[in-house]
C-alpha cells in the first residue's frame, strides 16, 4: 500500500517534470537553453517515472529490465545532447548573449560611422 503511494507520487512528479521540460522547449529564447529544457525530460523525468514503475513490479526480471532501460537512457541521452550542442557550436550557431553583443557592436559602429 505504501509502495503504491510512493510510486504514484514518483509517477506524477515525473509527469510534471516532463511537461515543464516540454513547455520550456517552446518558451526558451535560444537553442542552447532549449537543449537544457529537453534534457530535463530525458534525465529527471525518466528517472522518476521508471523508479515509480519499478516500485509497482514484484522486483523480479521486469524490475531488472526497467533498471537496464534507465541506465541505458541515462548513458545515451546526455551524450546525444552533448553531441548536438557541440555540433551546433561547430556549425557556427551563436548563443543569445553573443548575438545581442554582435548586434550591439554592429549598431554602435554604424552610429560611429554616421
Amino acid at each position, binding site marked *: 500500500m505504501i509502495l503504491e503511494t510512493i510510486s504514484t507520487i514518483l509517477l506524477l512528479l515525473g509527469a510534471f517534470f516532463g511537461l515543464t521540460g516540454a513547455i520550456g522547449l517552446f518558451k526558451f529564447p535560444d*537553442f542552447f537553453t532549449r537543449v537544457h529544457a529537453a534534457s530535463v525530460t530525458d534525465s529527471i523525468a525518466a528517472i522518476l517515472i521508471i523508479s*515509480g514503475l519499478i516500485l509497482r513490479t514484484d522486483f523480479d526480471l521486469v524490475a531488472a529490465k526497467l533498471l537496464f532501460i534507465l541506465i541505458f537512457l541515462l548513458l545515451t541521452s546526455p551524450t546525444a545532447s552533448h553531441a548536438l550542442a557541440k555540433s551546433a557550436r561547430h556549425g557556427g550557431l551563436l548563443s543569445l548573449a553573443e548575438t545581442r553583443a554582435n548586434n550591439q557592436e554592429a549598431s554602435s559602429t554604424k552610429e560611429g560611422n554616421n
Partner: protein
Amino acid sequence: MLALAATTIAILSVMALALARALKADTVYDRILGINMFGTKTALFIAVMGFLNGRPDFLDIAIVYALINFIGMIAVLRFFEYTAADDNQSIKE
C-alpha cells in the same frame, strides 16, 4: 491505475510538443532536438503502456527504441558534419 493514466497522457503531451517543435523550428538543430526528444519519450511511453495494459514483458522493445534513437541521432550529426564541411549550407530555416 489513475497515476499510470495521468502519466500516459503527460508523456503523450510531451511527444506532441516535441513533434510541434520538430515541425516548426527556427534552426535545423531545433528540429534534431525535437526528434531526439520524441525518440526517448517513445521508450518511456512503451514502459508505461506495458504496465497499463498489464503486459510488462515487452520491455525489450523500449531498449531497442532507446538504442535506435541514439544511433539515428549520431547518424544525423555525422551527416551534418559531412555536408557542413562540403558546402556552407545555411543553418537558419
